[in-house]
């Protein structure tokens, strides 16, 4: 049988992989995919724990996770598309209009 810690380790791997995708890839679509991978890591944690405790709460948690992800992703994707439409880019590097003016003003 599978020890819980093994499932959790795989889940943690997925979570960190998703995080790495977000940190390393500079394109919005990749970042969204990274988010999905992170969420899947969480889902695996919840389901493995649900099996361990033998109650359905873990699965319920995962279902809500899917719902929330879907809702969030829908809006986020549209925003990405809007960025593409209006700003003609999906590169993170190009989305840096909002930032501190480091020239520094009068003291």
């Amino acid at each position, binding site marked *: 049988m599978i020890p819980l810690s093994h499932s959790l380790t795989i889940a943690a791997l997925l979570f960190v992989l998703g995080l790495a995708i977000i940190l390393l890839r500079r394109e919005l679509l990749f970042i969204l995919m990274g988010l999905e991978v992170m969420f899947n890591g969480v889902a695996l944690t919840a389901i493995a724990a649900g099996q361990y405790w033998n109650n359905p709460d873990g699965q319920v948690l995962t*279902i809500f996770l899917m719902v929330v992800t879907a809702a969030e992703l829908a809006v986020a994707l549209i925003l990405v598309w809007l960025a593409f439409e209006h700003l003609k880019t999906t590169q993170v590097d190009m989305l840096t209009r909002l930032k501190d003016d480091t020239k520094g003003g009068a003291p």
Partner: protein
Amino acid sequence: MYEIIFYLTSAIAVLAASAILIAPHPVHAALYLVISLLALALLFFLLGAPLLAALQVMIYAGAIMVLFLFLIMVMNLRPGQNQSAPLASGWKGPAFLALILLLELLWILNRFQITATNNITAIEPKAVGLALFGPYLLVVEVAAVLLLAALVAALYLSRKERS
């Protein structure tokens, strides 16, 4: 046999996810993501969550991936605008940070006496349904509002400028 399938599937899920990290083209990345998600669905099934396995296939691999692909398609209609960047130049720092996080998590997860195993018993869809519409009824209702809100937001953002 069970263990072999489990670890093999896990390996596929993780490898597919790592492939996203270095995939040059969004379409490839999306396909890797599908593989990872499907592998995960199998893991869910193996961990005794048949309902979730089915939902994973339907919602993630089905609906969400279609959204991704659709968007990629829309964007690819305009050539020249959408070269995907290779790994960003300063990748070592973030990668190192992610590695530390991973180590921390692994350390934490293996520090606790929760390694005991029971036999895998499937938690039937019925039990999940009863929980969903019993104690979690309010959350279900509220989640509906969330979907509505997302719908309204998406509708507003996606329409042409009001004249």
